[in-house]
């Protein structure tokens, strides 16, 4: 069955002489030419006079927030790439929604954007917009606009959009151009200049001829400005996603305890070092070794937002029951690796009741805790910067008798890619701690 019109019976709500009516008539003609199923077309409208447009079409519609129409259109197209999505926006939307305009173009999401550009805010009283020509009088530029108007087409065009057209509502071939835009895969922009007879026309003694003259004066070319073959984003996303269909789904490694370490109270172990020193992964290895020993562990990491510089402090709480509070309290065992770590943990030193393990450079620090220097030079092989944290931390927990060497080894063996280096680090830890201390194993 042929669709003869996509318009509702009601007449448009626009002011006499307003250009919006004729643009919408051109859209209707373009839809009739394409015979699109009204259920497969979503007209997404922005806010402003042009935002009223969708109500005059017997198609699906989305009327959302000012400036955000392209974001809804993007979501619709991503979820249903088979649908046609046409966005109708005023020039105001290109200001408040400028970021979305740029990114829709870059992304080449398959929507067709019609900017009904009448160079001012009609609905709210004729204020200036991004496209108001310099010198023009509006309600908010009483002595003439001081700002340079936005070249919508140029901006969108240089950022990769598949189709870019500038014209006016008087263009005889506008329906054909709309069809061309809608049939181009990727992002299509049509910057359609028209007259706001309520404000811009009377304020600037403007008319059809001045509309075209204004484009020439601003050096803005009209007609088809860009047409590129691009991959439409929603289709490209699906094609790219196909590669992951058989990929392994999210999976968290299950750890089955195979020994029992006994603790009479929770132990708070803190390791304080620098970013890039594998502090967090060392703490994780110790934590997983503890879980293998039937303990519950919580690991809380503290690091500056810059991640690759400054301190990296991990705290692990080892307990015989679930750790519901992983908060930073005074550590029972404190391991200090670097100056960054010293700065973050120094405050515990004057009142420490537990043990403090440091590398030789901090051998002379003062603390109430029992200080033990772990010297990487005692290891058989050289301890590199990235193994230092695990080596010293292993030395500390072994010296404390918290965990067994077997538990540590089986934890690192679960990660074969790093196992060799990690096993060396543990061996270094054993050497530093003065051999394999007997763990409190039951």
């Amino acid at each position, binding site marked *: 069955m042929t669709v003869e019109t996509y318009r509702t019976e009601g007449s448009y709500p626009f002011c006499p002489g307003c250009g919006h009516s004729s643009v919408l008539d051109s859209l209707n003609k373009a839809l009739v030419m394409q015979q699109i199923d*009204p*259920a*497969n077309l*979503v007209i997404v409208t922005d806010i402003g006079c042009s935002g009223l447009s*969708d109500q005059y079409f*017997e*198609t*699906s*519609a*989305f*009327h*959302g*927030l000012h400036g*955000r129409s392209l*974001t*809804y*259109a*993007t*979501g*619709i197209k*991503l*979820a*249903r790439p088979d*649908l046609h999505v046409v966005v109708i926006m005023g020039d105001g939307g290109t200001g408040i929604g400028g*970021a*979305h305009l740029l*990114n829709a173009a870059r992304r080449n999401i398959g929507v067709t954007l019609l900017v009904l550009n009448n160079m001012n805010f009609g609905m709210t009283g004729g204020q200036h917009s991004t496209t108001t020509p310099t010198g023009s009088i509006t309600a908010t530029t009483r002595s003439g606009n001081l700002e340079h108007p936005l070249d919508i087409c140029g901006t969108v065009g240089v950022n990769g959009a598949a189709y870019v057209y500038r014209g006016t509502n008087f263009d005889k071939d506008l329906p054909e151009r709309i069809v061309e835009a809608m049939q181009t895969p990727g992002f299509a922009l049509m910057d359609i200049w028209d007259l706001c007879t309520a404000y811009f026309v009377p304020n600037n003694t403007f008319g059809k001829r001045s509309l075209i003259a204004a484009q020439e004066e601003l050096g803005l070319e009209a007609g088809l400005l860009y047409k590129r073959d691009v991959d439409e984003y929603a289709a490209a*996303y699906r094609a*790219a*996603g196909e590669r*992951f*269909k058989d990929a392994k*789904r*999210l999976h*968290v*490694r*299950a*750890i*089955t*305890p*195979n020994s029992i370490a006994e603790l009479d109270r929770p132990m708070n172990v803190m390791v304080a070092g620098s970013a890039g020193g594998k502090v967090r992964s060392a703490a*994780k290895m110790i*934590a*997983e070794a503890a*879980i293998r020993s039937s303990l*519950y*562990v*919580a*690991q*809380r*990491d*503290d*690091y500056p*937002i810059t991640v690759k510089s400054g301190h990296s402090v991990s705290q692990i709480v080892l307990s015989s029951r*679930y750790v*519901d*509070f*992983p*908060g*930073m309290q005074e550590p029972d065992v404190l391991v200090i690796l670097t100056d960054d770590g010293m700065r973050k943990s120094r405050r515990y030193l004057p009142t420490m009741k537990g043990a403090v393990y440091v590398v030789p450079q901090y051998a002379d620090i003062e603390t109430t805790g029992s200080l033990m220097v772990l010297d990487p030079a005692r290891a058989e092989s050289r301890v590199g910067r990235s193994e230092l944290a695990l080596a010293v931390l292993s030395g500390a927990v072994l010296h404390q008798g918290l965990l067994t060497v077997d538990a540590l080894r089986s934890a690192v063996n679960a990660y074969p890619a790093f196992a060799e280096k990690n096993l060396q680090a543990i061996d270094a830890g054993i050497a530093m701690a003065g051999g394999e201390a007997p763990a409190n194993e039951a």
Partner: protein
Amino acid sequence: MSAYEFTDGATAIVRGALDAGCDFFAGYPITPASQILMMMMAELPKTGGIAMQGEDEIASIGMCIGATMAGARAMTATSGPGISLYSENIGMAIMGEVPLVIVDVQRLGPSTGGATTAAQGDVEFVRWGTGGGYPIIALAPSSIPESYTLTMKAFDLAERFRCPVFLLTDKEINLTRNTVPTDAYVSVPVLKRETIDQGAPYRFSGNSSPMELYGTGVVRFTGSTHNEEAMISKDPEVVGRLNEHLRSKILSHRDEIEMLVCDPEVGATTLFVSYGITAGAMREAVTKARSSGMKVSAVTVQTLWPIPETGLKQAFEGVDRIVVAELNPGLYVREIERIAGGREVHGLQRIDGELISPSQFLEFLA
């Protein structure tokens, strides 16, 4: 011997979302919520879903709303600064009746604040974070397994009441790794979305009208006041019915929404009330107190909004002192004061970026 995982809340939220049938995610990088974005970007393509990094938070929630109206089951995740940018679209999702799960991984505010510091300062922000003053639903997990379960529940409630639902978590629950038995994850049923392909897209009665989705018929959507056909209306009779529906669809079904975990002790005259990360410290304190012979009751609030009044009032029976603990300048405590029936209410707060410790609770029992 049972097996354990060494995992975090972010992972639990992603698993909960996937198990709830989430097939669309959009978000913008922000500490401490980025892990959810990255995991969803990695996981959704494997299930045929879509995950997007928007150009900003506004675009991200906008994409989620558009995708939902085209049939997706969507989630987004951010932190306080991102919720600020979501604000206007949250209102639109309420008005347009869009099921959507919004994860807020709270960090210390105001402003950029402390990006890697835990806080619970958004509890009233999500409640009143958009214009109009309409009810919202917000759930707050206090552990990793709860992060899983309440994510699924958030999807269920979003479908059931056709509205955005907040999952309010924080940096510590999201990123602190903890030991979780593999069988600790409790899944809950998620309502299958009822859809129609013709008729009015809205019904101003009952809790959830069936949805009409793009591509199945001529479907209208608007964020303006509208009639049941989604045509813009200013008729006071229509607008009144619409807005009363947005209110009553949630407030008339509070028994389906309100969740809390009560741990009462006979003879206790002090009740601890907390939520989220602070509830963990509270539970540790309760264990310690009882092991040394002190009596205390405790409530972990899971549904922050609407406030579970019925359950809380039951927990208040026989108690003459209530301690409300939270990592903010004292927000939820005012809600408890409102319904405490004249009981003594104390706020236990911390705003220095550190967590409230079990010993701070115990001071109230000394």
